[in-house]
Structure formats: structure tokens, C-alpha cells
């Protein structure tokens, strides 16, 4: 059962009956998920399950063939990504997609493109850099010159620069050293505590389930399970399929 929201604030993110396909191949079938205030929700599933497609459909990069997406109660289905950013949505896309010829600083600044309050952006810049202190002295390096894992960190940092209210993360720990994975997990928890609602898509079910409050399982484009993260982590099927124990 879903946990009922305590307050009457509109739900940050509600996806209802979403379907999408690439050409004739369906990638998502009637997917419904909800992100309640203050929650970290994770979406786990094998590769090719459609996790990234769902993220893209939410943020406007893929046009859904049916269903709708609501952001704080407002129907935003089919809006372009830049409009959604202005409504408080931010994404760490699959494959990072940094602007490789631009410096790390420029990448971060672009993260705040939609914001106009310079002072606040400046403060956030410092805060975000503090999360990855090893990169601080390399602000002037082109993003493409960073190692794979470093780029992943920059991608997370860039997403935070837009001061999102809803943050979607598509496999943010891919290619990261084990110690950094832990740090990212930690960062996610901390962000969530500041009132950002997080949807975390992961292959790495172990980490995902350990930070999330609630989890959905996506298989072959459809949601097959939904529960508290702890409960799912203990379910034998999940352990067998995703945790490899």
C-alpha cells in the first residue's frame, strides 16, 4: 500500500498510465508512479527495462503515447524539457551528457541557466562544489577532460545548480568508485532532507534500496512491484534478481 500523504500539498510528481514506444517497439506500458513530498523513491529494474525511457518521458525528451505527468498537480505532459526545468524539475541524464568542450565552471553555470537570482546561484555554486572538493581546483578544465567517474560527479553537481524541487537521477553511480558511490548515496539523502523530492533510477539496487524510502520495480516496461524500500530489499525475488546474493 502507498503511504498516504499527510499534508494536502499537491503531489510533487505523479505519473499516470504512461506509455511510450520507439517506432513500433513499446518501451513503457501503462506506468504509474508517484513521488510524495519529502520522499526518495527509487526505480529499479534490469537493463532495457525502460527506466531511462521513463525518465525521458517525464522530462519531455520522449513524447508519451498515452498517460500524463503531473508536477505539483499541474499537467505537464508533452512540455519541452526547458519549460519543465523552470517548473522545478532537474535531471541527471543517462550517460551524463556534459558539455564536453566547455569548462566545468561553465557546465555548472549552465545548470543554473533558468535562474535569475545571481546571489543565490553564487551560494549554491559554493555549496555544490563543496560536495566534490577534489574537483574544486579544476573548475577551468573542459568537462570532457575529466575521467568517467569525475564526469558523473559533475553531472550530479550540475543538476543541483538549478535548485530543483524534483530531482530525477538516472544511474548516478555508474562508473563510480565504491567509496564515491557511498558519498553519492549520502548526498542524495542530504538533498532530500532539504526538501528536494528525489526519483532515483538505479541498476545498483543495493545502494538504491539503502537510500530510498520507497521503491518501484520496472520489468519489460511495466511496474511489477511497489513497496517500502526496506521491505523490497528483503523480498527473496528481489534479492535473487537484483542483489545477487
Amino acid at each position, binding site marked *: 500500500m502507498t503511504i498516504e500523504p499527510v499534508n494536502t500539498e499537491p503531489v510533487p510528481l505523479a505519473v499516470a498510465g504512461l506509455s511510450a514506444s520507439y517506432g513500433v517497439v513499446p518501451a513503457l506500458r501503462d506506468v504509474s508512479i508517484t513521488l510524495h513530498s519529502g520522499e526518495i523513491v527509487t526505480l529499479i529494474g534490469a537493463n532495457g527495462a525502460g527506466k531511462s525511457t521513463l525518465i525521458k518521458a517525464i522530462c519531455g525528451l520522449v513524447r508519451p503515447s498515452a498517460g500524463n505527468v503531473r508536477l505539483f498537480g499541474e499537467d505537464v505532459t508533452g512540455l*519541452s524539457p526547458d519549460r519543465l*526545468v523552470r517548473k522545478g524539475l532537474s535531471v541527471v541524464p543517462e550517460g551524463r551528457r*556534459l558539455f564536453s*568542450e*566547455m569548462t566545468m565552471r561553465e557546465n555548472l553555470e*549552465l545548470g543554473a*541557466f*533558468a535562474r535569475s537570482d545571481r546571489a543565490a546561484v553564487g551560494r549554491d555554486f559554493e555549496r555544490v562544489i563543496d560536495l566534490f572538493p577534489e574537483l574544486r581546483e579544476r573548475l577551468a578544465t573542459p568537462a570532457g577532460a575529466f575521467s568517467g567517474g569525475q564526469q558523473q560527479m559533475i553531472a550530479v553537481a550540475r543538476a543541483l545548480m*538549478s535548485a530543483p524541487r524534483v530531482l530525477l537521477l538516472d544511474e548516478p553511480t555508474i562508473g563510480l568508485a565504491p567509496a564515491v558511490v557511498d558519498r553519492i548515496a549520502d548526498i542524495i539523502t542530504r538533498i532530500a532532507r532539504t526538501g528536494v523530492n528525489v526519483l532515483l533510477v538505479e541498476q545498483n539496487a543495493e545502494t538504491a534500496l539503502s537510500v530510498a524510502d520507497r521503491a518501484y520495480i520496472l520489468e519489460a516496461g511495466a511496474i511489477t512491484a511497489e513497496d517500502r524500500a526496506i521491505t523490497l530489499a528483503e523480498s527473496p525475488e528481489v534479492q535473487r534478481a537484483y542483489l545477487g546474493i
Partner: protein
Amino acid sequence: MQTAIQLILTSLQIGAVYILFSLGLTLVFGVMRIVNFAHGQLFAVSALVVATTVPWLAGWGLPILPAYLFAVVAGVGVAVALGLLMYVGGFRFFQRDLVGSFILSIGLVLVLDGVLLKVFGGAVRPVPEILPGTVSVLGATITNQRLALCVAAMVITGLLYLALTRTKLGKALRAVSIDHEAAMLQGVPYNAMALAGFIIAAGLAALAGALIAPVTIVSPVIGADYLVKGFIAVIVGGLGSVPGAIVGGLFVAAIETFGSFYFDPSSATIAIFLLVIAVLLVRPKGLLGHG
């Protein structure tokens, strides 16, 4: 010495128009990753409209300068409207599709060539002198018209350069040219930018055409010469790079001027080509290009 100054001045004057022209090409490439061969037609339309409107307005008794300014507005207006039509009816569907957009632009070149010839006729159109007289700069002579053209081109280029390098817009533009989807995910309004980029490019071509109309040979085929030179300029400078377009425009103009002076004009054309090859050998993405 005086010869050198005269030639440098000439390069600058010619270069000013090449720069305006190639800025448009480079801008559209930067935003949409397309190569638009019909850019020359936008340039031609504007020049033709100016060349038709000025005598017409002068015929109504309007003094020459206001007539010209009015004609510039008309020329740029028509060219920009045409650009809008091209974008909405065509290029919009071919963003980031080098081959598709290119062939579309070839189709448009053919259509527009035919239409311009029908509408304006093939005859060369005289534009009365707008700013008569000449000035002497360091011993070299230059007509007031060319001087004004040069100044206008420099101002426009300067403004655009500032806008694209010093503002958020410039950064967004570079981001879009690297990965437009990722840019949208940062809140960069890509579709609006593509449209704006295309329209600004059309406007630049139109301004170039309107500015050059009083000092050159205005006919429907005027775009072709500029197209070749403009493309060479952007290859040399690096596609998508604003300073590249400036450097490239001046490069082509200088070789053309000095080559024509010391050898002959058709050798200069071949020299331009050989130098481009040399540049590409050393820097396959142009002098200032990346991405």
C-alpha cells in the same frame, strides 16, 4: 606604403561584408548543426529589394538617405520573412541533420534562383549614390559609402560578438551546439533559440545585402559569389565559432585583395583554396573550431 594601406583598407571593406555573411552561416551551424546553402539567396533578396525600393522611393520625391534607410528596413524585412518561411516550412524538421538540411537548402536555392529571376528580372539594378564623396585615410582613398558600410558592419559584428561571448545567451548557444537535449535539460529553450538563431542569421545576411547594395552589382545571382567565399571563411575559421567567422572573413578578403593586386584575380581564387587546404591539414576543424 600607400599601396599597402590601400590594400589593407580594401581587405577590411571587403572583409566586413564577408564577416556579416559568414557570421550567419556559422550561427545557424552552431545552433542547428545544419549547412544552409540558401543563405546567399537571403542576401540577394535583401539587396534586390533595396535596389528596387530606393529608386522607387526617390521617384516619389523622397530624399536619398531616408529612401535608403527605408529600403534597408524593407529589404531586411522581406529577407527575414523569407527566412522565417524557410525555417517554419522546412529547416525546422531537419535540425541536426546535415545531409537532409543540406539537400533541402539546395532545393531552395534552385527554387529561389528561379523565383528571384522572375520577380526582379536578370538586369543589374542601379542604386543611386547614398553618401557621395570620398575621404582620405592615411593617404588611401575610400568612398564615404564604403566607409559607412565598413563601420556598420563592424558595429553589428561587435554587438553580436559581445552578445554571444559575454552573455548567458552565448554560453547557452555553445551548449546547444554541443548537445541540444542536454542544454534543454538545463532550461535552455532550444526551439526558441533555433528559431532565433535562424532569424538572426537571415537578418545578418539581409543586412549584409542591404549594406552592399549601393556599392556593388545587384542582380539575382549576387549570392553565389558570397556563398563560396563565406563558406571558405567559416571552414578556415572553424564552423560554429564567432571569432572564427571574423578571422576567416578577413583571411579570405586579404588573400583576394593581395592576390588580385599582385597576381591576377583568378589566381587569387585558387590561392584561397590552397590555403584552406593548408589550414585544414594543420587544424582539421579550422583555426578556431572545435566540436
